[in-house]
């Protein structure tokens, strides 16, 4: 197990470097952060050169990248467009987005697996068709449409929920944005669970479990669900990154000042340290989630052993 973790961590290093370098190239090489500071006006060449030097932009791209990474590992993420250190923005943004992601994640996992289980057990019947139709519609309606429609009806018209999220983002306010953020993934989880349950319910071990007289509840939860969850867990793990990225849209609709909001501001104002810094942290979270998923396999499926 320990050796497996170390091997996986080592495998993550090139992916981490590659991903952050890709983002770095997009932001620094394709865009021009100095020109962006001056808006429509052309900057004075001498001033521009001075800023370039101060921002380490007069070196080659790989050298800039190495310089940037060195700074990151000493905890220096640079300054944002408003002059605040990027780490300060992160300190205020990440707790909010992590809460939002957790709310969405719980909704996605519980409702998704629940719906998928119902549909998989009643394959071909009304409940199954209902779940399938529901997931089709949820996948087809884009997140931002669902967001505005729910906000309009639940928040503005019927006063069921708060249309915007209050300062400090209390959990109660985050439920509606969480539902919106979870929507599409929830549908995928339900479909994945349904397929997996339907496939496994024909397995020999399940017939054995029924034949030896186990109560249905135990057959479904221990024998069927545990085996069916393996692909679902894979999806859930990789989806954490997707959820945090999807927060760019959700946070904009519900006016939440989290990672998506800060990232979007950084992009609008073309402030490279904000963009690259936030994306780097997101990539780390994404890679860590994938590692945890792989370790969870062994818990769910005792046949899998880590050499």
């Amino acid at each position, binding site marked *: 197990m320990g050796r497996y973790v170390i091997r996986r961590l080592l495998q993550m290093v*090139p*992916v*981490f470097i*590659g*991903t952050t370098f*890709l*983002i770095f190239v*997009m*932001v620094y090489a*394709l*865009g021009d952060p100095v020109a962006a500071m001056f808006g429509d006006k052309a900057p004075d060449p001498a001033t521009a050169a001075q800023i370039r030097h101060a921002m380490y932009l007069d070196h080659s791209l790989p050298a800039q990248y190495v310089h940037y990474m060195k700074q990151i590992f000493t905890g220096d993420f640079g300054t944002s467009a408003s002059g605040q250190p990027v780490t300060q923005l992160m300190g205020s943004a990440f707790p909010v987005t992590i809460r939002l992601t957790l709310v969405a994640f719980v909704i996605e996992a519980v409702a998704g697996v629940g719906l998928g289980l119902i549909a998989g057990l009643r394959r071909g019947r009304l409940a199954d068709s209902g779940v399938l139709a529901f997931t*089709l*519609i949820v*996948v*087809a*309606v*884009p*997140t*931002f*449409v669902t967001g*505005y*429609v729910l*906000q*309009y009806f639940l928040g*503005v018209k019927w006063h069921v929920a708060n249309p915007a999220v209050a300062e400090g983002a209390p959990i109660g306010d985050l439920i509606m944005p969480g539902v919106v953020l979870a929507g599409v993934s929830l549908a995928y989880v339900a479909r994945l669970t349904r*397929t*997996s349950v339907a*496939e496994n319910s024909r397995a020999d071990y399940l017939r054995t479990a029924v034949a030896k007289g186990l109560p249905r509840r135990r057959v479904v939860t221990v024998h069927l669900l545990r085996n069916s969850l*393996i*692909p679902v867990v*894979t*999806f859930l793990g*990789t989806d954490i*990154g*997707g959820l*945090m*990225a*999807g927060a*760019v*849209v959700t946070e*904009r609709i519900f006016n939440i000042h989290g990672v998506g909001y800060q*990232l*979007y501001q950084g*992009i*609008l104002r*073309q402030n490279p340290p904000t*963009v690259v810094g936030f*994306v780097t942290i*997101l*990539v780390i979270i*994404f*890679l860590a989630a994938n590692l945890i998923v*792989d370790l969870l*396999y062994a818990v769910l*499926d005792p*046949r*899998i*052993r*880590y*050499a």
Partner: protein
Amino acid sequence: MPETTDSQSSATAVADAPAVAAAAPGLRKEGEKARSLRSDAWHDLSRKPMFYISGLLILFLIVISIWPGLIASGNPLSCDLAKSQMGPTSGHPFGFDTQGCDVYTRTVYGARASVSVGIFSTLGVAVLGSLLGGLAGFFGGWWDAVLSRISDIFFGIPILLGGVVFLSVVKGGTVTTVSVFMVLLGWPQIARIARGAVITAKQQDYVQAARALGASNTRMLLRHIAPNALAPIIVVATIALGTYISLEATLSFLGVGLKPPAVSWGIDISQASSQIRNAPHMLLWPAGALSLTVLAFIMLGDAVRDALDPKLR
């Protein structure tokens, strides 16, 4: 992926891409007449109402993307500020938006952007992904290793995040730039599936037999492997088409995808979203059209998957 002691890993892969199993057709019940995968799939599709509904809808969308004038006589860019946010009147069934443009005309003309981004991105992703992935799977070796690591890197970037970063620095806002971006970030998805399908097909007896008979690499790839590896690629690509359309609208909504004067549902929804309390019709029509389009493509993808993947029947 951790080592597995039995077929678990293939089961996981199948769940990720439900159609990988279709690469190995021929698991036929005894007594059934032998059919090729293609005619078998067609036989299954032709009995599905979902296939006809989505097919007709897509046909209709393609026709109005090419000739929007067929059902909308107005000009999407001719607007009259005096009619700003007015509700439906005769001749203008969907009402007017903030600029006083006819919502019906704009909704009809908006199909072109969505459908063309969807089709171009999917074609690009499918061709690039299956070429790179397929060749990597067939030849193996260092090219395979390098390609797998590169696709790991691309998988590390959520596509929406990459889109916001990439498209905000590459100023363009046209169908071409958005499609190019989607191909750049989308190909690893197909490449992985193509690689897996080719590796499965490569190990089949008939491919080994062809090799033993002295068939060249080209012949083996084109005559024996490609036809059998194509099914999972078609399935994933059809479903991806719907998600690309949705992604284009989301990027346009965020202000980094298509930009005015381009006519796109994403742009219209974004502009209507701040006025949803006063004039919800401005948002609901383009949003409805967008949802219906994505739904049609996803339904088609579902039907094609069920037809090509006999395992779920």
